[in-house]
């Protein structure tokens, strides 16, 4: 197998605004894929709708740019059909936490072997800046002219409580850590939830690169991601947003179940069924 380079995963030319955090996410993803030497033909990337979801076409792979909120079930279907594939799901914060928020807990409790990139810019970029589920309370926009009365979600804490077997956070402003996180997430056998902070330079004046550069810090090397309760406490009390792996747990994945059954020909099964219904 030839050693891959990040450019081997170049798909269609991205259409994001110049300076968008998603470019950094894409380049970190391509670097992680090449480091892991994953074949494009064995990689599936499902996404929903929104700026970041266009990523499915920008990576050379079997991409499925689907409908709003449904990256996870599409990815699940792919994994169920062919567990040998590397399956990644990508969604924005509106896509993955508002309209598609109902899928997250179930993917976590199934421990479906999917790497989920939750690419968070705290607003709806494609519709020009309305507040998303991670927008700060009080944010003023065209749909919240007097300021949003809604409190933001804490995606890392949610994923931890849902029982995701791998939970981490990354930021393309600190690319080496993000590449490592994506590699670790893909290599983890189970559902990997990666909260990725990706500033919108067009509509978001608050959560900017500078804002996150100041407010993020790499997880201390002393931190061991083996304690879910400790991880939840950290996620809910952190002054600075930690980058790295919050929690990691090895346990059987969904597709491990039901594989110990003897498989027969379809016709044989149907003829056996005849006996039951006579």
């Amino acid at each position, binding site marked *: 197998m030839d050693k891959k380079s990040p450019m081997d995963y170049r798909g269609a030319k991205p259409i994001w605004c110049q300076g968008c955090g998603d470019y950094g996410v894409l380049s970190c993803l391509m670097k992680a894929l090449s480091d892991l030497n994953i074949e494009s*033909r064995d990689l599936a990337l499902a996404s929903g709708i929104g700026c970041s979801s266009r990523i499915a076409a920008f990576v050379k792979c079997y991409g499925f740019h689907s409908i709003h909120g449904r990256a996870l*079930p599409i990815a699940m*279907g792919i994994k169920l059909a062919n567990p040998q594939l590397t399956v990644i799901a990508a969604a924005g914060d509106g896509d993955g936490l508002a309209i598609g928020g109902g899928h997250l807990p179930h993917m976590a409790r199934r421990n479906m072997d999917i790497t989920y990139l939750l690419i968070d810019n705290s607003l709806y970029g494609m519709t020009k800046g309305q507040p998303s589920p991670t927008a700060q309370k009080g944010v003023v926009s065209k749909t919240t002219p007097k300021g949003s009365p809604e409190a933001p979600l804490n995606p890392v804490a949610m994923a931890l409580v849902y029982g995701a077997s791998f939970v981490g956070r990354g930021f393309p402003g600190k690319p080496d850590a993000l590449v490592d996180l994506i590699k670790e997430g893909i290599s983890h056998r189970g559902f990997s939830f990666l909260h990725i902070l990706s500033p919108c330079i067009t509509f978001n004046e608050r959560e900017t690169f500078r804002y996150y550069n100041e407010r993020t810090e790499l997880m201390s090397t002393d931190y061991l991601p083996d304690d879910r309760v400790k991880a939840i406490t950290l996620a809910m009390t952190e002054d600075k947003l930690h980058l790295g792996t919050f929690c990691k747990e090895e346990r059987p994945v969904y597709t491990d179940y039901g594989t110990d059954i003897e498989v027969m020909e379809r016709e044989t099964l149907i003829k056996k069924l005849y006996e039951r219904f*006579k």
Partner: protein
Amino acid sequence: MIDFIPLNTACFNKNLDELDIQLLRTKFVNAKLLYMSNSLVIRIAGTAGEGVLSAGDMLNLAMKRAGHHTMLFQSYGAEVRGDGPSMAQVRVSDSPVLSHGDEVDILIALNQDAVSLNLSEIKKGGLVIYDGQPLDTFGSQKTFTPSLPEGIQGISVPLASISYQKLNSLVSKNLVALGAFSAVSGLPFEIIADIVKARFGEKSLSALKMGLDNVTAKASVTGFNLEMRSSLQEMLILSGNQALSMGAIAAGVKVFAGYPITPATDIMEFLATELPKVGGRVIQTEDEISAVCTVLGSSFAGSKAMTATSGPGLSLMVEGIGLASMAEVPVVIVDVQRAGPSTGMPTKTEQSDLNIAIFGSHGDSPRIVLAPSTVEECFYLTIEAFNIAEACQTPVLILSDQFLGQRRETVSPFDLSGLKLAQRLKPDIEELKGYKRYRLTDNGVSPLAVPGMEGGEHAATGLEHREDGSPSYDPDNHIAMTAKRWGKLELAKLESVKPVRFGAADALIGIIGWGSTEGAVREAVSKANEVGLKVAALYPKLLNPLQTDIIEDFVRPLKKVVVVENNYTGQFAAVLRSNGITCESFTLCEGRPFKVAEVLKRIEESCYKT
């Protein structure tokens, strides 16, 4: 001159590896007259929790084992336990049973209310087996003598007292009743005893036996002989949902995703046990949106995939259906219809999802809609659904309903020898050089690469796209791609199963229907033909796209066309009218299937008014 075409259809498909899309050939086997001369209808009635449905199920199987063709129809409330009338009706005959039966020959009433509730449907000359010594809520015995109209015979069996006093429980009332029925009717006791033993164990036989011994007189009801015959031993008793599930297995389904919903849940339950045995997977998803998207993902990854639901679930799935149309992903979606709208009447039958099946989802989103009429067709049309989905790379919907999905009837073992399964068109090595997922072709079908194929990488998308899958807002491209997607329906129209015609060759009055109404219409048409009424009927199995040329040929010589369907607004009639077919609408919206007499009456009215 009566021209009958049989129910039995089988799909024979050529392999689609080459671009030749000769996909579906329907073979009509064993043309024989379908007419029910002699039948007997037994209804078991009671309250939810009294074992009405299980007694019906056992009686139905016993009838088949005794050598009779049968159909079991169930009607029950949404509550699995608790108050609410429920009934199971078994109709037996010498020939295949076409409908559930208009009138009851023998009523087995498990409680007092069940007598009065069902009395009006008992035939003159019929029989009621009732509990003459019921227990009140404090467990003390009362006496009950129903006032039966003249000509209806009553047989009292102390169902509750035997069950409670001798067996210490009321749960055996249904078994006592079955035992009594065996004595009354002459249905061989050993047959029913074998079934009860297999289901509830040796100890349950005492209830059955006490019911048998309690009745000494054998009644002659209609002259229908229920004694053992040797025929039909190889035949099966299957529900529509079971046959449909077996069809999916035969078609090679690999992934089933679904969410529990009455009356479609049986399909997921059946496949959950059986599909893993052929290497497939069943997943119960968090909702129907997830279910439809999961099957889209599985199909994208190269597996045949299916979901099954009922109306409320289908409402949630329509966005996914649009995506399957746009991204050209083959999927099969089953809708076992129930009475709507909204939650409606979950356990009651209706055919009111035709509009959403054909038109649901925004934009011009092509899809194929098939409607089986019988349990047997549930098997063959499911295979056809997969074949069309794979060949045309479109979503295919199957419209069943509660009546069809949950009724159980005798069917022959399926003909597996001639089955050919369509494979989706895959790109060859040449095609994979500069692969274009949505390449424009003559018939609209583009070779479809699946993960694992070197060079086939692409992005499937719900955005309008160019041939290579890249998004495009160009008007000429949108026209070309829309035409491509719709063009594939022409393929389905040409190659799919053809409408079934039955009735007088020189008919002046025509009935058009779809799905589960066919049996009652067959009986009504044959009775009408018998008395000289020139009536024929046409049952298209492909409801979208319509094979309008065949329908027009049928309609051309007719003076009047009546469209029979189980809904309020006449949804299929509206579709036919929009295709230029002039027709009247005859609808029934009571949550139950048509009776033969109702259809016959409408035929007579049409004849006289013409």
